[in-house]
């Protein structure tokens, strides 16, 4: 019976750890630059590069 309780405790703790890790990952993603942000800045850089090539 004691062994069963230990296994259940481990499973419960592992479940909590998993939940915490998923939350951490979501939080990290929220802090990282999105594809849309990178695409927008890429367009601005491309515009400026083309303008400079025209000046050269």
């Amino acid at each position, binding site marked *: 019976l004691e*062994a069963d309780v*230990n296994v259940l*405790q*481990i499973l419960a*703790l*592992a479940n909590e*750890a*998993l939940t*915490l*890790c998923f939350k*951490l*990952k979501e939080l*990290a*993603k929220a*802090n*990282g*630059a999105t*594809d849309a*942000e*990178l*695409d927008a*800045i*890429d367009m*601005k*850089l*491309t515009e*400026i*590069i083309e303008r*400079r*090539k025209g*000046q*050269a």
Partner: protein
Amino acid sequence: MRYQNRVYVALIILALALSACAGTIRDRVRTSALMASETALSLDALEQQLAPSLTPEQRVVTNKATLAMLEAVRTYERAVRIWPESLPAMPASVWEAQRDAINAIVALERVFEDTPGSGKLLANLRKLRESIGG
């Protein structure tokens, strides 16, 4: 027996925490690529402000070096953009683009080193280099 179980639990938690941290490296690099690109845009504006005070020969040199820097930063941003989420380690393409971007920034720093009134531009170039990891 109970002590052994606690060790297992601690190991499981540690492994999961490490996997969670591995996911954040890509996100951190993506954010730094975005910041680097924004700094590169501000550098373009600063160079345009400084251009009228330069000789035509100097303008040719600064335009060429600024263009090389902008292209290198864009290549870095693009390499970071296509970094697959499933890949926890930084891909070789990102390392290479990072190295090339740092080289282009250093080359531009050298061009502006002796140009009067370029203090703000040089400070931004240092900021750009540091945000990329150089």
